[in-house]
């Protein structure tokens, strides 16, 4: 595909064009999505360079989770373009999207009560070579090995979150969509998840992170897209975040 495309034009005018360091893995342009009658995404446009951690920041109801579900193909009615690794996916059902190498860790974690921890972990089929082996996953999450025969939903909130992330690491997916992985968790667990995200980046995963916790996002991400009313209104490189702190605070209402 078109390597070294600059990830410009994605954000609003305030954003400086980022350096063309990596090829673009995910390119969302003019994405519209609907829940029944209600029009939720109004032309989302952003790009995710390979190997980066990118966050979608924004208030409740801005359309961040909807964007994740739309990328994953879980919304029936969507228009526009979602190109992953050069392939147009906007008309594909979610199982086909997953097979291309995108995996979602949903906001509500989606741990199955009818499955034990190990079954939950092994549930997502391997779609591509190159994922973590079961041994590597258990090395990253020793707690899941200890509790592998427990019912999935009997784990603590933090453990469930770890399980929800762990199970998409073995599938060979290159792009991970993590929807608010820190929501409702104790600070020490949030820190662990931060370390985990950095480790995963180091291992070569590309990550899109939905966050409301801007302070957490700043510790892990390379760039931030600000989402409001179903579109991206601004973009910051993480390096420029200090300089734009006031602006960001006003966007997020913090």
């Amino acid at each position, binding site marked *: 595909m078109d390597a070294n495309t600059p990830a410009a034009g994605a954000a609003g005018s305030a954003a400086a064009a980022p350096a063309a360091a990596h090829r673009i893995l995910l390119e969302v342009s003019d994405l519209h999505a609907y829940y029944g009658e209600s029009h939720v995404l109004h032309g989302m446009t952003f790009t995710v360079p390979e190997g980066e951690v990118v966050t979608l920041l924004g208030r409740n109801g801005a359309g961040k989770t909807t964007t994740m579900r739309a990328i994953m193909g879980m919304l029936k009615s969507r228009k526009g373009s979602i190109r992953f690794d050069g392939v147009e996916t906007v008309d594909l059902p979610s*199982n086909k999207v*997953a097979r291309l190498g995108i995996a979602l860790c949903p906001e509500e974690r*989606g741990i*199955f009560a*009818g499955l034990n921890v190990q079954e939950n972990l092994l*549930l997502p089929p391997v779609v591509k070579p190159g994922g973590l082996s079961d041994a590597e996953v258990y090395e990253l999450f020793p707690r899941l090995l200890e509790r592998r025969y427990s019912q999935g939903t009997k784990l603590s909130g933090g453990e469930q979150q770890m399980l929800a992330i762990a199970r998409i690491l073995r599938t060979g997916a290159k792009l991970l969509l993590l929807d608010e992985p820190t929501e409702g968790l104790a600070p020490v667990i949030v820190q662990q998840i931060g370390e985990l995200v950095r480790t995963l980046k180091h291992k070569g995963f590309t990550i899109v992170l939905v966050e409301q916790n801007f302070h957490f996002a700043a510790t892990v991400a390379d760039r931030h897209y600000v989402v409001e009313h179903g579109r991206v209104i601004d973009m910051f490189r993480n390096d420029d975040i200090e300089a734009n702190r006031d602006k960001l605070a006003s966007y997020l209402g913090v």
Partner: protein
Amino acid sequence: MFELIGVPPAVLFGQLLLGLINGAFYAILSLGLAVIFGLLNVINFAHGAQYMMGAFAAWMLLTFAGIPYWAALVVAPVLVGATGIVVERLLLSRIYHLDHLYGLLLTFGLALILEGVFRSQFGSGGQPYPNPLPGGQNLGFMFLPNYRAWVVVLSLAVCLATWFMIERTKLGSYLRAATERPDLVQAFGVNVPRMITLTYGFGVGLAALAGVLAAPIYQVSPLMGSNLIIVVFAVVVIGGMGSILGSIVTGFGLGLIEGLTKVFYPEASNTVVFVIMAIVLLIKPAGLFGTAK
């Protein structure tokens, strides 16, 4: 001991065996209903008609093609299961987004049509089907017909194999997960719509298998399913909608209880299942093995 309760052992065990046979049919049929309801959220009222189609398929294979019972045991469920797949693709798949009630009405209508077609073709009188395993064993305390022993053994084996497949295998973990969150399982890369189609075909195939097993015992008649299905629905409710283990245990258990009732208080034998259903619903509305959703 038998003198004490005033019942000769041959009568007691004879009725227990009959109960076990009925229980075997209850178990296979309610298992199919449970599998279908679990994944499709459809209460398959055509289940009795599909059981009847299984019996008719076996009878037609024998009468028109000379295909014997043992082959029909495999061929008939596959054929009837295939009709189930067509029904799911053409009809059921269009109404999943609607209320439960529509699936129930659709399959109920389908059952009436199927029974009507078979009645107009073959009349409502039964067709006999020869017993493939004549003879029996004298166990000392009772006479055990070979074919009935076979029905009980095969039913148990099929039920346990289905339970194992759903509760202990990878494929089963997809099924259980898709029962909870089909959208998420599909987003992991599993072709859930195809899995739903095959699951319906499998459930219908189970009903047809019960029909083939029933053919040599009962008459093969268009209404054989509707006579049985009401009790089977009571079994499903008692066991808990969608519970695999519940449908197996409750199926065999209620068959035995029915048999015992025939010995000790025959007047109640037709109603005992419904009395139990009422009591279970009062105490545990989700059923013995069910979990409230």
